[in-house]
């Protein structure tokens, strides 16, 4: 999650539907309308890194010279973020129905990281609960796949001691690769790590025989 984290940058590049609450001159290029002002209530998609600051900007203390002007009126943020497509009711329902067969990667390749950010800003407890449950459910499957993949590669090494397993392997490989396509980046990381460690522990046990 550091400054140089590539995944974090990609997460922040996710687009969020936003609504401007004030008229702002000169920002028309944000909605492909360069040179024109942006009107209040204009709706457009903005990347997270831009939107979340602009939505929070009324919390920033204004400098002295503008204090006097803004005293009488309530500070209004420049824009308002609405729930991104990734966390829409439709997706939440899909998660609740069957977390395991969900194609998370096509929803958002950085689903979890965005969810963490989103929950942190708006403290949406429901979403946090749903998402952590989702990860819990899916991690069991991920673990299973990581384990079976590592045993299969072992079988190649110790030449076909169980030939019936080697026969069914192409099917398994196919199934697991299509399963892997549905993982989001965080899950992929979990998969890779557990796969590695299963492989390493197998090798260690094998060596000590």
């Amino acid at each position, binding site marked *: 999650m550091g*400054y140089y984290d*590539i995944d974090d*940058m990609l997460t922040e*590049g996710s687009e969020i539907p936003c609504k401007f609450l004030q008229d702002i001159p000169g920002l028309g290029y944000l909605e492909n309308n360069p040179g024109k002002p942006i009107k209040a209530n204009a709706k457009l998609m903005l990347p997270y*890194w*831009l939107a979340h600051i602009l939505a929070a900007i009324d919390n920033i203390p204004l400098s002295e010279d503008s204090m006097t002007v803004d005293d009488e009126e309530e500070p209004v943020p420049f824009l308002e973020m609405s729930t991104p497509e990734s966390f829409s009711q439709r997706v939440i329902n899909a998660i609740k129905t069957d977390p395991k067969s969900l194609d998370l990667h096509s929803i958002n390749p950085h689903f979890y990281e965005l969810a963490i950010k989103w929950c942190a800003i708006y403290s949406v407890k429901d979403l946090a609960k749903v998402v952590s449950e989702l990860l819990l459910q899916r991690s069991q499957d991920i673990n299973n796949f990581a384990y079976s993949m590592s045993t299969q590669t072992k079988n190649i090494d110790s030449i076909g001691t169980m030939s019936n397993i080697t026969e069914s392997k192409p099917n398994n490989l196919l199934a697991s690769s299509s399963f892997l396509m549905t993982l989001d980046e965080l899950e992929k990381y979990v998969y890779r790590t557990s796969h590695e460690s299963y492989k390493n522990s197998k090798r260690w046990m094998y060596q000590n025989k």
Partner: protein
Amino acid sequence: MYCELANKLVVEAKRTEQLNSRNNARTTLPVHNDELVRDILNEVTQLKKNLEFFKEQQDIMSMDGASVDSNVMKCQYFVNLLCLERNKRCLLGYQKLRSDMLDSMAWENNGMDVMGSDLGEENSNLTHQEQEYLKKYSELITDMKSGELTDIDLSGSLTPPREIFIDVRVLKDAGEIQTEYGVFNLIKDSQFFVRQSDVERLIQQGFLQKI
């Protein structure tokens, strides 16, 4: 819309990262995307000009005493500033990934002359500055190893040896080497049974291959 180019750069960085996590044999660096970086830098210059313009306008307005919607003015300012920051972060992230990879390349090559022969073809993927960086970094490693830590082979293999003596095959002619057990004449395709610690270096440099 600003920063779309920067996004492209980060996506590319991600792909590089993925490729390298997959083949754990050796770090390979793709070509530095000069063109994209230059375009982003141009965008940064443009953004900077915008910011200066906004600042001037604000100054003029405050001089006139007509502080009309300075808040709204700030929004433009902010959007530009954020784009600037985003571009900066993406550029730095891209470069950091590359420099990290260069670091590991230097370590893999045992702090030897990384600019040497077997990396020649990869060097064309580096920019001039990166080559310079790699050279300096390798020098640092060499310095550190020849300093107080001479007794420890910092860049040695991390897997403990199984046997003291190993069979090796010669991949490249390397002339004669002297060991405790006599002189070996390393001619291509010949085989020897030697003490591992004697030939470790030669294996790392690619002269010998363990059988």
